[in-house]
């Protein structure tokens, strides 16, 4: 069992899922309440990581982070090194990779809040922002927990994006799934099994927590 890779992965997943709460809530809010006619395009873009091969996503993230892109150059001028093959780069890749797993449960739970409550809140003198904070968010608790847990679990198990963006640097970008791959490559099956089992158990525990909280199936796909 490679504990270094294990804790690196847990740290990555915790950072990504926490950031996704902050990033996902505004996106989900917009997707729930916007009446923009081209909204479906944004919905599709947010859902892309569900269907896209992680290598494709990882490839474009790598290009975007590289020193030829404006983002990569800006980061380089700031820190003196590129984002590619760093832990920070891994965080950015994982944010994109797990975005729909946070945004979709958020948006679904915002949309499930009875609109008559929002109307009542408005006629009681609350602005949209106040209503969101005092009515929508508290009533979406289950969706927020679900989004957090799913993006956590999803980040734990990512492989393709990590390999493309982070490479395989021990202690920096080598996550559990890469570690398992390495061990299988070197025919170290018992060690691979040990690590894989840990990942399997953690994922199962996280998911059963989500389902016990919600008691209703979570649907991956276009949300209402």
């Amino acid at each position: 069992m490679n504990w270094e890779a294990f804790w690196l992965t847990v740290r990555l997943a915790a950072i990504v899922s926490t950031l996704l709460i902050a990033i996902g809530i505004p996106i989900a809010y917009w997707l729930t309440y916007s009446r923009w006619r081209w909204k479906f395009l944004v919905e599709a873009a947010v859902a892309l990581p569900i269907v896209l091969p992680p290598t494709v996503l990882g490839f474009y993230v790598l290009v975007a982070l590289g020193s030829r892109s404006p983002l990569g150059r800006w980061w380089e001028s700031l820190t003196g090194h590129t984002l590619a093959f760093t832990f920070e780069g891994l965080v950015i890749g994982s944010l994109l990779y797990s975005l729909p797993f946070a945004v979709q449960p958020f948006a679904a739970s915002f949309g499930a809040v009875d609109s008559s409550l929002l109307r009542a809140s408005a006629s009681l003198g609350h602005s949209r922002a106040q209503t969101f904070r005092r009515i929508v968010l508290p009533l979406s608790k289950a969706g927020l927990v679900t989004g957090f847990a799913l993006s956590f679990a999803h980040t734990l198990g990512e492989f393709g994006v990590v390999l493309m963006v982070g490479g395989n640097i021990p202690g920096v970008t080598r996550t559990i799934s890469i570690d398992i791959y390495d061990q299988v490559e070197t025919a170290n099956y018992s060690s691979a099994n040990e690590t894989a089992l840990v990942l399997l158990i953690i994922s199962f525990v996280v998911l059963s927590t989500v389902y016990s909280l919600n008691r209703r199936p979570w649907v991956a796909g276009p949300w209402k």
Partner: protein
Amino acid sequence: MEVKIIPAPQTALPTSAQPISSELEVRIRKRFSNPEGSFNLNVHFRALAGFTIIFGASGAGKTTLLDCIAGLTDPDDGRVAVGGEDLYDSEKKQNVAAWKRRIGYVHQDLALFPHLTAEENVAYGLHTLSAAERQARSREMLELFRIGHLRDRRPSQISGGERQRVALARALVAEPRALLLDEPLAALDRPTKSSLVGDLRRWNQSHRVPILFVTHNGEEVFALGDEVIMLDGGRIVAQGQPHEVMRVPRLETIARLSGFENIFNATVVALHEDRGTMTCQLGKDAVELETPLVRADVGSRLRVGVRAGDLLLSTENPRGLSARNVLPGTILRLEQRDVIISATVDCSGTEFEVHLTLAARDSLQLEPGKSVWVVAKTHSCHLMGM
């Protein structure tokens, strides 16, 4: 239409119950849809402090009207003003956001916040006040509505009538400049209803704001109304005191809504100008009714409305009665509604609905199949155009 949203001045809530002289002026045109198609809501009225009943069948545009006043829906054009202040004016391109209008709105589904207690629900609209004042004011309001003991319960833990009280208290505690009530009593039994109406009246004696009260229940009109506005197909078809609007039904929609359970097609067969009455034949059957005289020719066709509560039943052919219409028939059905028995009586092919008390049913031993006589006074028969 492009309408600019102008923020209303943020005024602190008055700390005491000050009587605010406010008049609600509404002039609205708005296209709306209901299951039967799409209509134009086109109304213009003023509502003074006190109850104004908005009366109409479902789909008449009542809820659309309230939504426009509350600012939850934008009218196509028109003007909404309360106490002289414009809330919406299409000409001035003015549209105050709903949350700045200070108009209380209680919808039929109440929309209590499920994650908050009764007290937190009531305090919700007082968010601009300090915590201490918020608590004092909401507790006072809970007491006024006799639900002080429920303040720590969630909406799911209290009864329907209690929820109604919480919803009203929540709307009133914020001292709205006008109050919109969309069938707030519809789901309540009669005793709960009348005690709630009493509480609402008591509150309004000290506040004097316009209260628009939407209903499709004729009884509520008489129980509450200072003024009735009758809405049909998006238009005001009648307006005035309840007894003016409700007792003289010139329009069939009004008649049906104001509780004429019996409405028949009739043909005038004889005029008795000397007695001020005439004889009408119901349908194609041989049932004749003596009705008040109206300007009509023999052979002209009319509609006759009779309230079920204005009819009497007799188990014997009555003698020595002043009532001019005594029709033999047979009881088809007896149904209990609340504390009223609704009897359907077949009189030579015409069915009458008659309302009786439980005691009358028992002492007369009424049951389906029993022969009875239906008695109607001449002036209980109301004539309407076709």
